[in-house]
């Protein structure tokens, strides 16, 4: 095994590979950061280029793009409230609130540093524990309850009432039922459009729900006569010298106090990373679920939970850590079973297969495959380290964005949204889908209904239904859903999540007036 590590190191730490990592990091950040283009797109568009690279470079390219574009999805989420990935939607509200207070650099700095921390933690898990973790006995019942738990977390963490969260979630799940159901071979709710056979694609839906609705909200109140930047730009000391202005201040604006925050909340960060790694490891779950569940857990343990949703640095930090930790561990089911952990890994897996990496339980012990597997691990390490400087540059560029007047920015965002929606499949129908979802998002926000659960419902609805039906078909009795130990734990968590406060209130009232029993 040491030989394999050495071979992998020798092959990976070459100028060519490091160069590839830098270039794809910049590329990943570029595509991930533009509102309307997403991390999944970034990876999908990279695939044709990987054919011309050798195995190690191709792996490094994919890994680097994935890592950096997932972080880059935080940038439009923070600055414009348009998340680049569904996972970013968990904390987009908090980050945007910080931008409105003029702390956009700080918010992105937290995002960057905690992302790197989570990523490094996730890589360690991948390296040290993968073969053991792969033997985890998760069957269809556990997957079902995990999906329910994750979706419940998304529905319940918003500041709005539980009913609104449930409404948003149900709506998203209903939208996901449009099209052919793999369990039934029957097309539902397609209104005669053959383009809807495959269902509503989540990228146009997400772009529309968050992006177009945000644009609509902005232009509705647009005022021609004023120069309206998006937020208050950070204060600048005009009299300071060149070094201070161009070096010290930008760095302190982004990183100031962030490492201190990391040190203070190291336990929370490790908890979030562990949670992220665990959830990311389960096929079909991934970074999307991990961020939401971590955010919910963080809110549960927070000292000031009412801040969540209006600029809580703790919530932001914990969720973004879990997000990136899940990335690396999402490769475990891909490598060991050939089953992708999330949407981005699905595409990456395709590339791996074409490079003749054979997923299987022996992938970590087979001497022929080991160097490539270690190359993946080293690629992740490199990518996370490279993310710090390149992410910093991206943040600086992003804060310039904040000063561009809305009237110029909004048309450009509309264009990018349309481009993003069209580029997925080369289909104009997706543009209409995006528009419809944009109008829907606008209406929903008008009633104060959160958008995050809607997106998560659209993405995970298919998986949830599939596991539900599969569990129904596999089970002999209805209580099979609860009898396995892990199922019991997950199911109990779901019940507590939904009915916890109610139970607490009932218990309190009973204690106060014992006579009412």
């Amino acid at each position, binding site marked *: 095994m040491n030989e394999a590590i050495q071979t992998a190191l020798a092959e990976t730490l070459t100028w060519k590979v490091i160069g590839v990592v830098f270039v794809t990091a910049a590329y990943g950040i570029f595509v991930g950061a533009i509102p309307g283009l997403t991390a999944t797109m970034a990876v999908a568009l990279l695939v*044709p280029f990987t054919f011309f690279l050798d195995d190690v470079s191709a792996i490094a390219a994919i890994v680097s793009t994935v890592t950096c574009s997932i972080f880059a999805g935080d940038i439009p989420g923070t600055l414009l409230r348009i998340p680049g990935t569904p996972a970013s939607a968990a904390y987009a509200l908090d980050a945007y609130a910080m931008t409105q207070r003029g702390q956009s650099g700080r918010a992105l700095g937290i995002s960057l540093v905690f992302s790197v921390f989570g990523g490094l933690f996730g890589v360690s898990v991948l390296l040290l524990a993968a073969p053991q973790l792969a033997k985890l006995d998760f069957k269809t019942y556990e997957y079902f309850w995990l999906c329910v738990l994750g979706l419940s977390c998304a529905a319940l963490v918003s500041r709005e*009432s539980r*009913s609104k969260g*449930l*409404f948003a979630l149900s709506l998203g799940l*209903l939208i996901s*039922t449009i099209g052919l159901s*793999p*369990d*039934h*071979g*029957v097309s*539902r*709710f397609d209104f005669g459009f053959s*383009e809807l*056979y*495959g*269902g509503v694609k989540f990228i146009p839906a997400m772009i529309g729900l968050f992006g177009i609705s945000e*644009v609509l*909200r902005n*232009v*509705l109140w*647009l*005022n*021609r006569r004023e120069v309206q*930047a998006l937020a208050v*730009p950070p204060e600048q000391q005009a009299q300071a010298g060149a070094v201070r202005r161009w070096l010290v201040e930008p760095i302190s604006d982004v990183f100031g106090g962030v490492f201190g925050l990391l040190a203070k909340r190291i336990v929370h960060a490790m908890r979030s990373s562990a949670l992220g790694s665990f959830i990311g490891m389960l096929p079909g779950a991934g970074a999307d679920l991990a961020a939401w569940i971590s955010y919910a857990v963080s809110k549960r343990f927070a000292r000031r939970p009412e801040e969540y949703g209006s600029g809580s640095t703790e919530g932001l930090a914990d969720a973004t850590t879990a997000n990136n930790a899940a990335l690396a561990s999402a490769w475990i089911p891909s490598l060991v*079973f*050939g089953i992708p952990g999330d949407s981005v890994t699905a595409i990456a*897996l*395709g590339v791996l297969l074409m490079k*003749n990496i*054979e*997923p*299987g339980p*022996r992938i970590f012990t087979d001497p022929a495959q080991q160097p490539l597997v270690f190359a993946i691990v080293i690629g992740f390490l490199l990518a996370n380290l490279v993310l710090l400087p390149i992410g910093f540059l991206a943040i600086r560029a992003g804060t310039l964005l904040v*000063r*561009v007047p809305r*009237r*110029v920015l909004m*048309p450009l965002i*509309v*264009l990018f*949204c*349309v*481009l993003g929606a*069209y*580029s997925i499949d*080369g*289909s*104009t129908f997706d*543009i*209409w889908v995006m*528009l419809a979802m*944009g*109008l829907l998002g606008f209406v929903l926000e008008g009633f*104060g209904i959160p958008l995050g659960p809607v997106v998560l419902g659209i993405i995970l609805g298919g998986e949830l239904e599939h596991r539900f*039906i599969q569990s129904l*078909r*596999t089970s002999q009795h209805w209580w099979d859903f609860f009898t396995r130990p892990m199922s019991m734990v997950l199911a109990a968590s779901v019940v507590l999540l939904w009915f916890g406060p109610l139970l607490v209130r009932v218990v309190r009232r009973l204690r106060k007036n014992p006579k009412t029993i």
Partner: protein
Amino acid sequence: MVMRNCILIFGRPLMLSTRFAVPATAVGKFLTERRGIYPVPNSKFVQRRMFRQEATWIALFLAFFAGCADENAYPNRPITLVCPWGIGGGTDQIARQMAIHLEQELGQPVNVINRTGGQGVNGHIRGLKADADGYTLAMITVELNMFHWNRLADLTYRDALPLISVNEDPAAIFVHADSPWHTLDELVQHIRSSPDNKVRFSGTSAGGIWHLAVVGWLQQLGLPADSITWVASQGAGPALQDMLPNSAVCCSLPEARIPLREGLVRCLGVMADQRQPAPFDQVLTFKEQGYDWTLYGWRGFAFPQGTPEAAVQRMTEALRKVAEGQTQVAGETFPDFMRTAGFNLTVRQGDDFGQFLAAQDEQLGQAIEQGEFSEVARGAISPMLFPYILFGLLGCSLLGMLWKTFSEEELEPRPLDQQSSPNLFYFMLVPGAVAAYALLAPTAGFLIVTAAVLLTLLYCYGTRLWLSAVIGVLAAAVLYQTFAHGMRVSLPRGWYGW
């Protein structure tokens, strides 16, 4: 080239008028100053204004010619290969390899786009209903023969001009290594004798080709389609992963290559005419075990009906060369790739392919029409179960929201962002712009529509006209170069091909 020219043209006036390191706040003011509030006019400023106007026209002129099509022999522009299945899957792998080899052979880029969904319906429609100009090549798979039988779409093999098929993978039945069945006879015996303890089969979605393979075989034996339970899965991988000792999987041999090699599953038989090449040469065929049943999943390439003869000839020629191994990419031929990836390379050309399609259409039709396959495919659980549960939840949440509105809890007033009144015209511009884009882009092309839409939006929201034009054209040109040429994303083609 467009970009370089634009930079040259715009660079000079910028350098004259401002220093590079301008604070961004000044940029904002500059962009939105109203006419008439200029600094004191001087000759240098007038010169800059003229530069801007000239620059605008030159930029427009250059963008116009950014992607003019060259009217030489076919093919004279990039070709789109439509793959009806997802990235990384077997069909996609074959499509992308073919695309690379075709690019070498034809000398034009061949871009693979994945149009997934609907068990292949989307991709097949996109490929076969595209313009029959020879620049859209459709990858077709076995599902093409199933759509009209399953009443999913009106598409049949007659809508395709079959060029070549490159792959035929017969279906095979796998069981868990710990299962009690070692031969097909034992499996059939169990199915016949235990109607209450149905074998659970998996391997693809309900109604998919492998489901049909099993059902068709059972029907030939006189067993009804519901003598087994089909548990849908997202492809063969997860099905093989989730297998229990009393379940079986039907899929193609390459898809189960790894579990088979590891000894985790056993292959009872393959639905082929002959034994398959190594590493599957030990697997008995159905025929050898006394069951005269074959079923192949296949993959091939076709043009839409009505494609001009010249294009058909050239493409067929190119495809044939690739399939025969006359092209090389990175030292590897197409047959080399098929062999290492484990796909069965079986080549049928032109008419041979067409006859094969017709014959298989009939075979599948018989299997589907008999025994009410589509109802069985639906399964015992109603497809509307989950939606009904969701409607229930939706109703509950609505009730909950109404309760909250009328209960004693106070609602937080939503703070308004601005003090001004809402502007409905601005609001309607956005859906209008998106709709205009969706309607016009396929006709007029990406560059024109993008520039026009941007120009309109920017101007309506208050930016000056010339600046709107410049930003519009520049953004359109840059995006086109980056996405269409840099990243080879398909953008709408129009009158001029861009």
